[in-house]
């Protein structure tokens, strides 16, 4: 009953938030390409409650400011660090951080400094152990307030850790926190992919016999065999509606792209070339699939209808392209191109026009979009050992995700969590 009452309160509170947000919405046009970041200023949260309040609130200040800075929406000034000063901030972000024996409450606020008006007021409650989530939720609400779309601070990234000759599946928060393994097979893992609701991870593993397609629920992390057909079973990628899985199978002789149902059954072959066809990536409409094929000699990205019809080469400007990733907004495809210097990441429109290089230097692989399509995560050896990096696609240098010195590769970005309170 108490739970119900609290939920009702949260609901009422969230309704209030929505009305405030509508009244004062400030929208940025990010889609135009020429993105300029909005100056915003973070002031420390005011700690109240028990003796732990001050230390956790200082950490929450950092998480919140980092989330906002990494959103690619804002230039963030931190009032506690004068080196980050920014002129004319469009919002002042702060609030109260209350720690009690039962948990933590973050009462977040954004004020318009020009009119000294409250433009956002939200309250989040959580356990002490889960305090980072409160900061992430507030950051996402601030981003939503200024852009009309929630941020991606509460998302996660699955990836593969290489340790000598073995590879395990790992997962972490998008800011690199809470990295931990999901498999302990001392075998090989490749190409993880989330289901559209974020509850499942499909991946290739050699834990059985050769490369087979497996899936695990994040709730129990138990691998379940999806496809163990003869030869290669790899690159399992859920369709946007979660009903099908595009993948690579070689049961008919060489590698071809197939679509399976979500249980791994009723394979439908989409490609039939003498070369390699692999690495499928769905358009968010589910009506087209980008993939890699070397049917014309070198590997090239192609786009076909989801039934396998009308394959066409994405671009003729580059002589080696691979690893397509269709943006969740549908308007762009990221891919890897081999150049004289190494492997670079490019982005173009789905018709192949407007290709621009967004990451270069070293060997950059497996680009994957964030759910808001503002960022790409990729693996790179640009500063030595393989690690995961994020580019904000606006000309700022990519930033490395700290995975504790582990060799990290093959990232996959989760969708936003289904339930965001309030």
């Amino acid at each position, binding site marked *: 009953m108490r739970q119900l009452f609290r939920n009702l309160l949260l609901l009422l509170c969230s309704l209030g938030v929505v009305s405030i947000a509508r009244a004062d919405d400030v929208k940025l046009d990010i889609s135009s390409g020429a993105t300029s970041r909005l100056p915003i200023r973070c002031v420390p949260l005011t700690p109240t409650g028990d003796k732990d309040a001050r230390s956790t609130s200082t950490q929450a200040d950092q998480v919140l400011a980092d989330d906002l800075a990494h959103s690619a929406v804002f230039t963030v000034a931190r009032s506690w660090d004068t080196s980050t000063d920014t002129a004319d901030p469009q919002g002042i972000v702060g609030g109260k951080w209350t720690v009690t024996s039962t948990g933590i409450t973050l009462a977040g606020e954004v004020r318009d400094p020009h009119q000294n008006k409250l433009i956002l007021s939200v309250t989040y409650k959580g356990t002490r152990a889960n305090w980072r989530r409160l900061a992430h939720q507030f950051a996402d609400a601030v981003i939503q307030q200024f852009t009309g779309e929630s941020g991606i601070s509460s998302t996660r990234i699955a990836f593969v850790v*290489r340790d000598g*000759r073995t*590879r395990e599946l790992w997962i972490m928060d998008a800011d690199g926190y809470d990295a931990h393994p999901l498999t302990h097979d001392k075998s*090989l893992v*490749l*190409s993880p992919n989330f*289901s*559209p*609701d974020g*509850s*499942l991870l499909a991946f*290739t593993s*050699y*834990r*059985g*016999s*050769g*490369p087979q397609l497996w*899936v695990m*629920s994040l*709730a129990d992390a*138990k*691998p*379940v*065999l*999806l496809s*163990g057909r003869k*030869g*290669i079973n*790899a*690159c399992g990628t*859920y369709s946007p509606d*979660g*009903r099908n899985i595009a993948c*690579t199978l*070689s049961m008919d002789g*060489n*590698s071809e792209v197939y679509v399976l*149902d*979500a*249980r*791994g059954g009723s394979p439908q072959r989409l490609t039939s070339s003498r070369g*390699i066809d*692999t*690495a499928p990536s769905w358009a968010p409409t589910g009506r087209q699939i980008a993939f*890699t094929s*070397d049917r014309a000699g*070198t*590997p090239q990205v192609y786009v076909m209808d989801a039934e396998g019809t009308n394959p066409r080469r994405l671009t003729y400007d580059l002589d080696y392209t*691979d*690893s397509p990733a269709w943006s969740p907004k549908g308007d762009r495809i990221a891919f*890897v191109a*081999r150049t004289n210097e190494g*492997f670079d990441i490019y982005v173009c429109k789905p018709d192949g026009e407007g290709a621009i290089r967004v990451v270069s230097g070293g*060997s950059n*692989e*497996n680009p994957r979009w964030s759910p808001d399509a503002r960022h790409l995560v990729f693996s790179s*050896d640009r500063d030595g050992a393989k690690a995961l990096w994020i580019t904000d696609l606006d000309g700022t240098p990519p930033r490395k995700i700290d995975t504790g010195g582990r060799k990290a*590769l*093959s990232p996959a970005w989760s969708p936003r969590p289904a339930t965001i309170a309030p």
Partner: protein
Amino acid sequence: MNPTNIRRALLVLAVLALPAVGCSKKNVKMPEVPPAKTEDKAPVPTPTPAPKPVEEAKPPVSESRDAVIKQLRTVYFALDSDVLTSEAQAVLDADARILAANTSLSVEVGGHCDERGSEEYNTDLSARRANKVVDYLTARNVAASKLKPVPYGKTQPIAEGHDEASWSQNRRVEFK
């Protein structure tokens, strides 16, 4: 099912399970059921237990398995190629004679690539290399059933350098 029926079903299960404990542990293992919560989300596939690695039968030859495997030489490939060079063919001719003389020996034919290119593309390229070797050997009287091609892509480099000296060692098919 009402509660009485559930209780009855549980009782029946318990009675059935009791004698089973005595004869074989295998019989009491209930099949795993996918979580019911995900009904209206993407369906969870029926769990299938991972196949256990098959124990290698000892070959009835004078030499140990390892000693025979050691005699099988690795073949190397050009960049992005699955073509067997004349040098590779000569190596495989010798490998075929060894395998043909040890008909009970089962070997893994591991395809490998250098570090350039994606994991996904290299998995397929390494499969093509392994299959080429299997085809070549079976054409020389080695039983296909004794050869198991495994595509390792670029996951198992011999040399960790980032130059042709290392890459040329890693583009290979080796026996295990």
